[in-house]
């Protein structure tokens, strides 16, 4: 059964929005993303979280092309499914198949025992939703969190 758009959006939060990343390298960005997620008091093991994101990149770049990357992992370091949005103005070399630097990041982390089974559907919705240029541009140019979440809603509704 498809997951409702409202449910997909519930995994995002303004507290997990990084409008402009500071890091300029892939390693630096992974650390910054892990730290940003770890501002959440429910996440108490940032090192394990960072290691999980780094391990996933070893399996293959999470850059899906068209300026977008979706770093993700199941990891014991998080108690429930959470998603984060981050942007980079200059773009980061992420090893994407199209060779383009990444400007939009959607991080998805979930515990291994995530029982609602929404981890893969959320990844799928992001991959699908970010194929369209208007959706990517809407997230990239949103002036605030409201704009980002509205853009994501539009992307998920197709």
């Amino acid at each position, binding site marked *: 059964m498809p997951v409702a758009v409202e449910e997909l959006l519930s995994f995002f939060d303004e507290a997990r929005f990084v409008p402009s990343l500071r890091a300029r390298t892939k390693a630096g960005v992974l650390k910054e993303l892990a730290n940003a997620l770890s501002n959440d008091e429910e996440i108490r093991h940032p090192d*394990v979280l960072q290691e*999980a994101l780094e391990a996933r990149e*070893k*399996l293959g770049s999470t850059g899906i092309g068209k300026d977008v990357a979706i770093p993700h992992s199941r990891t*014991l370091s998080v*108690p429930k499914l959470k998603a984060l949005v981050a942007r980079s103005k200059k773009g980061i070399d992420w090893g994407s198949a199209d060779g383009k630097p990444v400007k939009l990041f959607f991080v998805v982390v979930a515990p291994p025992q995530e029982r609602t089974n929404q981890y893969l559907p959320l990844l799928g919705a992001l991959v699908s939703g970010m194929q369209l240029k208007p959706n990517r541009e809407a997230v990239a140019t949103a002036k605030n969190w409201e704009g980002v979440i509205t853009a994501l809603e539009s992307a998920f509704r197709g």
Partner: protein
Amino acid sequence: MAKVTQKLAALQDIDLLISERKAEEDLGFSTAGLENLEEARAKLAGEVDGRFLRMYERLSKRYDRAIVPVVGHRCLGCSLVVPTSKRKSGEDRATGALVTCESCGRILFFV
């Protein structure tokens, strides 16, 4: 929490990544670096004391997951309440090492 628990948690995260790679491919993600990840796993496993690694491998064969989080003071593998003495430090006070569930034997991860 004992560092060995964190290393084993990272090891289990990698094992899960490897086992779920087909689902990742179906979504369009690259998994071409499997060898790189397996190398990283071997390196990480090499950093873990042999007796704990063997415990992890043995539990992994018995259960889906050898390490489970403690949520609401309960082992998420079998739901047994974790004794207070184990909750405080997240590690065995005598050995400074792993804490296991007294009922199912899984390694406990205090989130």
